[in-house]
């Protein structure tokens, strides 16, 4: 990150500045707002992404039996409940002393996960982001949405609908419901797929693959249409973090942790997920409910990293499905050996993954292990479990400590969006400096801030858990709106009063 961007985190004299608020940030999951502070010449002096909702799951799972976790924590989210369900399930596998699942259980969970990532990526690209990319940032608000796409490009809308619908169909077939289903149990799953269910899911596969290829082509084309803009818009240079398979392949369900530096060098590689705490720390800032994780080795200031499709496609050595691998090679050629840092490249990478998911689903549906009879493994109970998965939005950490009765003592969640918090803030500062600074603000200009945020596909409702460390500011304001007194509780628990 640069000093130029860091300087925009906190203005020296905020009380004297004009305040512009984008609230709510639209076409993202959850609720957030952006505040900009401008001086008299409309120069941007401060830019922040605020998360205005609070979840607190880390606190209220305490005291609950650990086997309830996979069902409870998926209530974090209505978009990616499967990711939370599986991450928690992996953690409680470890608490149950299970390290290897039967092939049927492992493949059922993977299939479920591919369905989840596919539907989530389709939702984000087609419903939320494509209007900006297809119509332009300045298009009329009333038209710049999925229904505008439906009117002007029904073929694109149809692809989005079919891909999302198929991903949800996979989830429903396995978990019983499209949202908040239940299939993973300690050490395995509670159900396999019958041959008939596999055949039914496989029926639209050819069409799904065609839609996925077209989606990738659209994302690629949109990026390449103006390479200069695509490369510099909201760009921030960061390290990249993701899981990778033992052989370096793209891995969404399991594997070890890999972090690459800005120039592409290894910061760490194949780190067992249980050791995440040695490599990642979290910082709390007084103005946000969302924490700011960083790579320990790089330090608090330089340790920001990104997760999600951009990080995964940059980090892996290859993708084990042919069409997605060919797309990855073309994508990486842009910056190799350094990672592709363009924020808008998230969309391209996301569609590479979507195609990978479609290919992987087709491959898995042909695997008879999905219909096997051995669904669970057992082991010796332990008191701690870490489950890490690549959720659609990035690496998702669930870490639980339990007592002798199996009740949760402590929980730590590092949700994908949280990992991108610093980068998202720097991206909006980049946009503020490049596009807004000194100009008369218009809706289209402000939309550029949202475009930067949307590229990360943040799920703001998943990501806010800083309970107990939550800073609080209380202002006493007179009838003219002037602040008379301020009471502030800082992240360290200290209380300051100013009059």
């Amino acid at each position: 990150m640069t000093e130029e961007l860091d300087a925009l985190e906190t203005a020296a004299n905020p009380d004297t500045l004009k305040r512009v608020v984008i609230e709510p940030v639209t076409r993202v999951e959850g609720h957030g707002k952006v505040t900009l502070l401008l001086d008299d010449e409309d120069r941007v002096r401060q830019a922040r992404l605020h998360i205005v909702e609070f979840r607190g799951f880390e606190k209220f799972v305490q005291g609950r039996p650990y086997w309830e976790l996979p069902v409870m924590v998926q209530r974090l989210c209505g978009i990616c409940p499967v990711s939370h369900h599986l991450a928690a399930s992996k953690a409680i596998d470890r608490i149950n002393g299970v390290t290897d699942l039967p092939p049927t259980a492992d493949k059922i969970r993977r299939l479920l996960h591919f369905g989840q990532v596919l539907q989530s990526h389709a939702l984000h690209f087609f419903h939320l982001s494509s209007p900006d990319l297809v119509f332009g940032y300045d298009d009329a608000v009333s038209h710049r949405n999925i229904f505008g796409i439906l009117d002007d490009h029904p073929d694109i809308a149809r692809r989005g609908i079919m891909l999302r619908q198929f991903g949800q169909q996979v989830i429903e077939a396995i978990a019983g419901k499209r949202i908040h289903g239940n299939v993973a149990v300690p050490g395995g799953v509670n159900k396999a797929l019958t041959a008939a269910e596999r055949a039914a899911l496989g029926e639209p596969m050819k069409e799904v693959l065609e839609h996925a290829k077209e989606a990738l082509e659209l994302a690629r084309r949109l990026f390449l249409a103006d390479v200069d803009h695509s490369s510099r818009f909201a760009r921030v240079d960061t390290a990249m973090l993701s899981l990778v398979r033992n052989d370096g392949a793209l891995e969404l369900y399991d594997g070890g942790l890999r972090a690459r530096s800005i120039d592409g060098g290894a910061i760490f590689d194949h780190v067992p997920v249980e050791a995440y705490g040695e490599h990642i720390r979290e910082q709390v800032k007084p103005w946000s409910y969302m924490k700011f994780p960083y790579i320990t080795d790089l330090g608090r200031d330089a340790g920001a990293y990104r997760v999600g499709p951009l990080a995964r496609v940059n980090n892996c050595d290859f993708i084990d499905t042919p069409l997605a691998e060919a797309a990855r090679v073309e994508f990486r050629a842009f910056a190799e050996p350094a990672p592709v840092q363009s924020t808008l490249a998230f969309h391209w990478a996301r569609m590479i993954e979507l195609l990978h998911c479609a290919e992987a689903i087709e491959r898995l549906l042909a695997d008879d292990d999905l219909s096997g009879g051995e669904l669970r493994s057992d082991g010796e109970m332990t008191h701690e479990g870490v489950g890490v998965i690549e959720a659609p939005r990035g690496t998702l950490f669930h870490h639980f400590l339990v007592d002798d009765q199996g009740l949760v003592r402590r929980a730590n969640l590092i949700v994908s969006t949280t990992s991108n918090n610093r980068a998202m803030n720097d991206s909006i500062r980049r946009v503020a400096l490049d596009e807004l600074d000194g100009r008369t603000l218009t809706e289209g200009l402000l939309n550029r801030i949202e475009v930067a945020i949307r590229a990360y596909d943040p799920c703001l409702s998943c990501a806010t858990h800083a309970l107990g460390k939550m800073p609080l500011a209380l202002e006493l304001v007179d009838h003219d709106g002037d602040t008379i007194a301020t009471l502030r509780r800082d992240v360290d628990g200290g209380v300051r009063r100013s009059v």
Partner: protein
Amino acid sequence: MKPAPILVIGYGNPDRGDDGAGIEVVNRLARSIEGTALEPNVETRTAVQLMIEHAAWLNGRVCAVFVDCAENVDSPCRVSEVEAVRDRSYTSHQLSPPALLEVQQRAFAQQPGRSWLVEIPGREFALAAGFSPTTRQCLPSCLDALTRLVTRTVSAFA
């Protein structure tokens, strides 16, 4: 595989009291037609709310029936025909049946031959399990009306 000619979608939030009554009626219908001549002709689905992707469910149907719970219904059950209209519910998160039909028309250039909205009265929509006395009382009548509608439709094309 060819879809069943009739699709019945119950929608609402079961965690919000009466709002889940549409889903309850559809689940009761699914149980009641098991093993009958209606079963191969009728597919039942449920959803918390109607969303864009549900337009794909409607493809290839002769008839679509939406079952919802509504506050402004006085009779035990209100049945009305619906047509594709882009109404004020047109958002990406929650669509009315007419708006969903309109999405299907635009995206897939098709729609069911006829579509119906079956509404059961609701009185309590706060976070709660179970139904208010009024709604509970209306469930059997609503199921009867839905069954009659579905039977009549099957007879018409059989």
